[in-house]
């Protein structure tokens, strides 16, 4: 890209050239702060955590390398196992319920509903709340003595009992409930937007061909929403893996450590139990889980783009 300089009066113009040069560098200068912030704050720190996960760091970072010991310890750790299983239960149920509920609501809401705007506003407001607020409310609603149970008793269902919040077997499901309550409206909005984007002439054509409404939805509309399913799945999985606030607000991982999730495990071990090495190893595994989801997703996205 070298330009052949043929200009005789270059010297005289050097000042304006300097300005032009600056102008050329401006775009790079402008993004430089972000580049540095993100380069350090995400990439360098990620590597740093990776390094720590191979050390014996406990309360303070030390750089004594012990190979994969922390990972081995993690795999043998009961609490990590519980956290991982919980993530499976929580993630699976949360994603599935959100998808089912939100697809149904989106389809229903797409039937020329009066006051659609108001209803949508109601479905979506939980997404504006902090998970801590959500957790606080649900903790109160599910309070074993004064909450739902008492309400049912007052309403005449004397034998009703609901103590999931304090049961180590069931507490994780209460977190699923609260999470679904918070996120399903938002996923519904995604699907609704997707439905609105479906070409209505396809549906008219199918109706002319005599297809029934459920068939049209099952065979034509929903399959065409595949990209929306993908991105909803992505977002929900992402929320699940990072879930921390809700657990902290509702159960703080308890009873015992029955509702631990990897994010809670990482926080507790790194910042309150002085096991930085172990905590870092768990963070790296979380990153691995996200990458395992992300790479195929990005791959399919990019491939689709190329097809356009």
């Amino acid at each position, binding site marked *: 890209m070298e330009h052949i300089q043929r200009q005789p009066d270059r010297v005289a113009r050097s000042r304006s050239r300097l300005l032009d040069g600056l102008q050329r560098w401006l775009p790079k200068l402008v993004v430089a702060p972000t580049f540095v912030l993100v380069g350090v704050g995400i990439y360098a720190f990620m590597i740093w955590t990776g390094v720590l996960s191979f050390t014996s760091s406990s309360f303070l970072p030390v750089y004594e390398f012990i190979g994969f010991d922390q990972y081995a310890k993690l795999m043998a750790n009961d609490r990590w196992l519980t956290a991982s299983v919980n993530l499976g239960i929580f993630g699976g149920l949360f994603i599935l319920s959100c998808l089912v509920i939100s697809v149904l609501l989106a389809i229903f809401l797409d039937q020329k509903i009066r006051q659609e705007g108001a209803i949508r506003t109601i479905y979506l407001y939980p997404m504006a709340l902090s998970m801590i607020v959500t957790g606080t409310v649900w903790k*109160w609603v599910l309070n074993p003595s004064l909450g739902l149970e008492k309400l049912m008793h007052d309403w005449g269902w004397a034998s009703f009992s609901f103590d999931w919040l304090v049961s180590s077997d069931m507490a994780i499901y209460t977190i699923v409930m609260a999470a679904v309550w918070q996120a399903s409206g938002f996923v519904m909005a995604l699907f609704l937007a997707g439905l609105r984007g479906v070409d209505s002439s396809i549906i008219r054509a199918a109706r002319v061909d005599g297809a029934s409404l459920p068939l049209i939805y099952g065979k034509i509309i929903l399959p065409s929403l595949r990209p929306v399913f993908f991105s909803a799945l992505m977002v929900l999985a992402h929320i699940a893996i990072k879930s921390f606030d809700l657990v902290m607000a509702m159960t703080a991982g308890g009873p015992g450590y029955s509702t631990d999730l990897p994010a809670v495990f990482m926080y507790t071990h790194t910042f309150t139990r002085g096991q930085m090495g172990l905590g870092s190893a768990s963070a790296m595994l979380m990153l691995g889980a996200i990458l395992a989801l992300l790479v195929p997703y990005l791959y399919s996205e990019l491939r689709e783009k190329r097809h356009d």
Partner: protein
Amino acid sequence: MTDVVRTGIRPSRVAIYGVLLLAALVYLIPLFIMLVTSFKTPMDIRTGNLMALPTDWTIIGWTKAWSEACTGVDCGGIRGYFWNSFKMTVPAVLISTLLGAFNGYVLSKWKFKGSNLFFGMLLFGCFVPFQVVLLPMAATLGQLGLANTTTGLVLVHVIYGVAFTTLFFRNYYVAIPDALIKAARLDGAGFFTIFFRILLPMSTPIFMVSLIWQFTQIWNDFLFGVVFASGDSQPITVALNNLVNTSTGVKEYNVDMAAAMIAALPTLVVYIVAGKYFIRGLTAGSVKG
């Protein structure tokens, strides 16, 4: 899509409305419970039930939550933390949005060698679980003398928010024809003139999206607050969690609920006032991140 269903009252229509209204109730009831509980007396809470209206309405829960409730060892209410959150949120939102606007402008209209790589780097940054940066960030903030300060939190939120804001602006500006930039360059406008005179006046919607998205994200954040702040610099979410989960003394659920309402109000107000942009941000933010 809208011409699928014809007019006329049919049983299926009734069922559809029934399901939709039931769902609306499910979404609304927790808010209702939170509100009525916050106006009850502790006595009322013990004798009544979740759905019952207060027998006598009182704002004692609210005043107590605001200025007396104990969050851990300290018993000055959540007032101070509420302002902390503002002091943290406002600058972080403004800085990250501004940076995002400039980044988006460069990444869409002034591409350079490597700018796509940079964009990919940011995009990936949207997905990284924050757990992998917590420890080094804590150490770095300590080194910089920013541990447990609002400034430190602002920095953290800017770093981890700028990827999203850049995404918003970049996608918005990509849709603006390049010819506009070319015309302005021929008219003699430079990098900043083009941004401020041509693009900025047409950016109101995306600024709204970015501001609102960042505001809710940062206001509602708990993880960074709990890890990087302590005591006096804590944001409201951390204080609320401390208040609710303090095991000392008698539980006052009216205070808990009032505090939760206070913590929720700013974002709820934003949602109600500018819900359109909120939804747009969520959808945009999710499709790409």
